[in-house]
């Protein structure tokens, strides 16, 4: 999602920096809706996807970050991944449409899609409201099985602190 997160920077610098300075650093890392939070690790990509990895390292839940969702603007449609599909890190697994833009959602790590959040088809706005919520009714996009390669891919992802720094720096230049 790298490209969309940057969309507003040039067009509306004030709105964009407001996003970064106020809500983004405060909310990232705090997940009041997630019941299994203590057992999971959340990691982020530079392309603004997140993945929660279960304690057993076998399964995960993924979505797009709050930073990306805000930069996208009003999301009008979410094209969900295909269940059962196995993908490599960086592969396009779906897309979101906002402001006439079809933006790819990429796989943060190698994985196999086991379940998709069909609620997003009816209510794409959920992705603007609670993009990092992995519970029922949240804006998570897919549940996945992590492949062997996927476990290795995790190593080059950022934790929430590093991601907050990364997005703050990205918004500054």
């Amino acid at each position: 999602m790298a490209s969309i997160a940057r969309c507003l920077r040039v067009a509306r610098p004030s709105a964009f920096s407001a996003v970064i300075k106020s809500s983004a650093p405060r909310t990232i890392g705090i997940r009041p809706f997630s019941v299994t939070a203590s057992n999971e690790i959340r990691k982020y990509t530079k392309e603004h996807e997140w993945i929660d990895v279960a304690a057993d390292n076998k399964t995960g839940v993924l979505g797009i970050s709050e930073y990306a969702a805000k930069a996208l603007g009003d999301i009008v449609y979410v094209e969900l991944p295909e269940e059962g599909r196995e993908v490599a890190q960086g592969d396009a697994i779906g897309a979101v449409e906002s402001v006439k833009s079809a933006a790819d959602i990429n796989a943060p790590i190698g994985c196999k899609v086991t379940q998709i959040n069909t609620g997003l088809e009816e209510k794409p706005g959920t992705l603007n409201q609670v993009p990092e919520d992995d519970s029922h009714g949240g804006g998570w996009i897919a549940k996945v099985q992590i492949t062997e390669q996927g476990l290795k891919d995790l190593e080059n992802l950022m934790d929430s602190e590093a991601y907050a720094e990364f997005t703050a720096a990205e918004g500054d230049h």
Partner: protein
Amino acid sequence: MRPSLLLRPSIGWRSPVPIQTLPKRRYISAEALNRPIQIYRSLSDDPYLNLSIEHHLLQSSNAGSTILFIYFNKPSIVIGRNQNPWKEINFARQQRGLPTGEPVNATQPIHLVRRRSGGGTVFHDEGNANWCVICPPPDFDRDKHAEMVVRALKGIGCEGVRVNERHDIVQDVDPRNSPPTFKVSGSAYKLTRTRSLHHGTCLLESTNASSISELLRSPAEPFIKAAGVDSVRSPVKNLGKTDGEFRQAVVEEFKKMYNSPEINVNLVNEQEALAVESIRKGCEELKSPEWFYGQTPQFTLSWNPTSDDPRQRPENVLTNLINKDIASTLDIKLTIRHGNIKESFITGLHWTDEVAQDPNQAVNDALIGSPLHQIDFLSKLSRFCKDSPESLRRMVQVTDWLHAVFGKERSPLREKMAPEI
């Protein structure tokens, strides 16, 4: 100096420095795709090919490069990636084609295309230019290249053109005019992990401008409730410039913007483009019914108002296919996912004794999983129809309506079964 050097073709300006000959005339070569600034123009008017060349430029060019691509298409209706064709297109009108002018009654087809970028439905023809700029994500901004086209248009004498809040190019005419502003160019975007694409139309001298509104007004729209993206209707207007004037002005403005006065325009012909495997595959994908119909976001079709879609159904060309006495007893509801029927519910037909116990199960078994663009409703349902003239009349009218709503020809069985209805 190497022997055998060749200049690349260009519009107007030619490079004083010869460029090394390539084994074939491959102007979308790997070498060309690696240059920091690139300009291409398609010599084809095939919409599927041109969109696939564009997609190839998006996917295969150097991630740091900036590219201008200009092309024109023969008459086509181009819907956005996440749109519903049945809601956007007047299929009955589309199937009649457009006059060619000569001979008097000759017509040409109107092609149906779903593009890979977002946004709404547009009409393309030889008088409507397409321009596209591909750039690295950090340089992306929804307006900057529309502004570039505005500068180009002003340079060739188009007054009152500007980019509006929807990132489209509009032209302000006399403020006393109603409307005082017309759309002349629509924008859409495709954003990938490594690249950003902005493309737009530009109405120059389309002879079909008066048909656009009718073509893009579907009589089925009042019966369809769909996820996905709706088009925003705008009054449109030709700028009255030739394709040559437009091309040259945009190319010059792009060169100025990227400080590259010495860049040549690479001309891409059909044969050369089709020699590239990913372009050929892209073309096949865009032409496939799985892409055009199957990519449609889930939707429901219902004859009557429902809790999800309480709009009053209008009397129109479609409802007139069903007689009043039948209309009041009917209920039809279909759910379509990925272009296939997922659920169905039809009441008001007269069923055979065999299925009268649970007609819904029988109808579901017959319809579910069928691709909408292929299904013949009459052949699927007629075997459940009670053997009486009144029952047949109902069956024929309901299936006629279903075919018309989905822009399909009448069932071939119809003339045989009920020529008099």
